[in-house]
């Protein structure tokens, strides 16, 4: 499996992401500079977290128009796998490779704490490391994580099994209106979504930061083992 991690000016979780892939595969992904105009030969492109271009216009808005994103779009259209985490998720929605948008957190403050996620997506390498309905813990670190989309889009995502992850309690209860559970106020507690072909996935929390016991746990590992098993 060949993985590339895109680095925009202001990206800051590329090393975390590379480390997580190293933990499961023993291989270090290559870094892709944002001005590159092709991503040929890769199996998976990852857009990691950070503050691309300072997030100065809207989170992810400028990065979505950078040269590499044209290549990433072509790559996805040909069936390539793309994972966007946090700022990466924001970039994928800004690039309209995933539906919806990420608004400012409902509480208007940056959120850096653990949340629990329920695995709901089906038929995707990004959820295949878990069983459907599993609950896992993941750290959040974002200011703009409040997922929103038109009601019919949300219905469709749910109907097609394209809600990859939802915020929930440690026991797996989804509570849209509870600020201690759905902390950023996301529509229908959606934390991550899949594209129509299920090969593009975006999520706000950071499974890559929970992949070793010494770093607080291995709850995030199945994301990477699932990808590894599928792509070899």
């Amino acid at each position, binding site marked *: 499996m060949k993985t590339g991690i895109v680095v925009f000016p202001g990206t800051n979780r590329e090393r*975390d992401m590379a480390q997580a892939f190293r933990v499961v595969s023993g291989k270090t992904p290559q870094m892709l500079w944002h001005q590159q105009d092709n991503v040929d030969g890769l199996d998976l492109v990852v857009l990691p977290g*950070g*503050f691309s271009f300072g*997030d*100065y216009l809207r989170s992810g808005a400028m990065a979505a128009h950078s040269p590499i994103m044209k290549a990433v779009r072509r790559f996805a259209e040909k069936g390539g796998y793309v994972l966007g985490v946090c700022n990466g998720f924001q970039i994928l929605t800004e690039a309209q490779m995933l539906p919806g948008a990420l608004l400012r957190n409902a509480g208007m403050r*940056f959120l850096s704490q653990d949340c629990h996620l329920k695995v709901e997506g089906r038929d995707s390498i990004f959820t295949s490391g878990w069983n459907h309905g599993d609950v896992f813990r993941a750290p959040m670190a974002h*200011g703009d994580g409040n997922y929103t989309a038109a009601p019919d889009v949300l219905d469709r995502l749910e109907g097609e099994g394209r809600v990859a992850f939802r915020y929930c309690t440690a026991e797996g209860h989804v509570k849209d209106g509870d600020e201690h559970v759905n902390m950023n106020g996301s529509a229908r507690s959606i934390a991550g979504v899949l594209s129509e072909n299920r090969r593009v996935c975006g999520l706000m929390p950071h499974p890559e*930061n929970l992949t070793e016991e010494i*770093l607080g746990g291995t709850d995030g590992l199945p994301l990477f083992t699932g990808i590894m098993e599928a792509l070899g």
Partner: protein
Amino acid sequence: MTAAPVDIELARSFGLKDDEYETVLCIMGRTPSLTELGIFSVMWSEHCSYKSSRLHLKTLPIKAPWVIHGPGENAGVIDIGDGLAAVFKMESHNHPSFIEPYQGAATGVGGILRDVFTMGARPIANLNALRFGDPSHKDTKRVVDGVVRGIGGYGNCMGVPTVGGEVNFHSSYNCNPLVNAMTVGLARQDRIFLSAAAGVGNPVVYVGSKTGRDGIHGATMSSAEFDSESSSKRPTVQVGDPFTEKLLLEACLELMATDAVISIQDMGAAGLTSSAVEMASKGGVGIDLDLDHVPQREANMQAYEMMLSESQERMLMVLRPDRTEEARRIFEKWELDFAIVGRLTDSGRITVRHNGKVEADIPLGPLADEAPVYDRPTMEYERPPALVPPADPCGIEKGLLQLLSSANGASRAWIWNQYDSGVGGQTVQRPGGADAAIVRVEGTDRGLAMTTDCTPRYGQADPYVGGAQAVLEVWRNLTATGARPLAMTDNLNFASPENPRIMTQFVEAVKGIGDAGRALDFPVVSGNVSLYNETRGDDGSVTAIQPAPVIGGVGVLDDVQKAVGLAMPQDGELLLVGETWGELGQSMWLKEILGREEGAPPAVDFAAERRNGDFVREQIQKGAIQACHDVSDGGLIVALAEMAMAGNTGCTLDIAPDDLPEHIYWFAEDQARYVLATRQADAVLDAAKAAGVPVRRLGQAGGEVLKLGDVMAVPVQQLRSQHASFFPRFMGKEDDAPVVHLDELS
């Protein structure tokens, strides 16, 4: 700017004393130009020259076999093994943080980050120490909100985890909060970069952001007290851009991987002036600057403005001439300005040209050597009498709950939940998990432990104890994780040194820090002094801050797997290391329960600290300890409650020994104490006996209730909800919160 005549009046308005201006006239042999006067005034400001503190700072212990660079560089550098070095320093941004809390705190973080990456280190952790006014004061909520957002806004965007810190409230900080920021970085020992310029003819290169008119005379503002006019100084507060700093970090580290850089210095306080002067002075060379080449954000800037601007995210470097183009390409890749703005000379002078005219021409030797140094008068410090132990008005349970829900005892989770503590993927102990934060050293088995501490109320009563105790608490907090404490950085926050009582506080605190550091082989490798932290009211009365000699410490764990946290385990026995004599003077209990700030602070005993700490560390390294927590604010019962809350597990405690009343035993703040949770209590007790360390049994871990004989039984859940209640209640619903800065979230 209209050209004001340069005279003694103007010199005074620039913050120079009359005799200092006389010295300037002597050095120059003529009336200085406006730019020259500006350069002298900032270089000789308290902030840049340390003129009141220098004599005393010289007494601090700064050496140890593991110290690579001590004070005098941008940050301290210590050997942590494997050919690696930890690079760290703490610095204050107090005055700007009252005027404009968000930008004041943000640029404080930006400044200390630059100090560390200037040396070639990648920042791996941020910490801070914050002091705010009384929660009931009208400004406190505004300042807390802005400072917390500012620290988070900058650090989160930089991708440097904010892993630790401390926060206290006291009315003496009502109009003069303290914002001290610390950064720890990691470098290869053979790739450390210093600021001394070398090589006559070599190019002087400016990189980073463009220069604007922001922050002019910021260093002078930081060297004066506050008054009701201070908010009109808002234009002297700099504006931070963490995105540009992130680019600057990556570009600098990329350049430093080549052999292009001869020396490098960030532009912090006093901007281009201090960076150019320091680089040239340290290297014993002269420097010619041509301001026409300085990247500028605003039109028609004068030489004076460019030399004194404190625009953020800028660096000055001396490069090998044959590597200049390679360097230019790196900075262009990161879309940063890169300009050759001068050359090194053999003139021994700083010469500044603008529009073809010489605007400043100053001999560097006298600018540094004849900088004022003051041996300010001190006095006999009046210490409060010892406390007559008061009776307990409310019982242990009520007292404990009150402490846990007070501003100074409450959970800080509301704050640290706004700081990204995990970015970088090496954070082993996040805030609240252990006495010190622990960050793994990437690619090794090692970990660094780090913490900041200070107890200003102790220092107010007895400045010597205040200084020493801050060091001891830092050393203890590092030890309590199992780490070997290596070195410290100090951030000395005091009021006006021109007041003998305050100067005495300073001198005594430095003595205390020095004695403690010597006793523990714990040298000071970097630091910062912030004076004039006081407020003049409209009626002329002066409110001085409680002195805050804040200490930041770094320790190393050779095997990070052996680190312990403070969370109460499900089973095991609880032991107390150290003696309890019943020190209630200046305790948190006395202040929060009885509203009294009285008595002598707890005595410090360096020998006991070292003996007890070395024992605790050894037991942790042996694997005999499941959890460890030092005893500090609020005493033993608060320490146990904190362990219980962190582990979401209760414990059953025996009542106090016969010789002390319950409330004195449980709330006293005697030093050199630790609580251990262990499944090998007998072995630990035997080892303690052999080592001559006082250790006694406290009780058993387990259950869901914190139970103390038949005196108290409180469910841990209740402790947690009380503990978590203060900040959300104080900071209110978000609807009432001040305006959100648009660039901080994301």
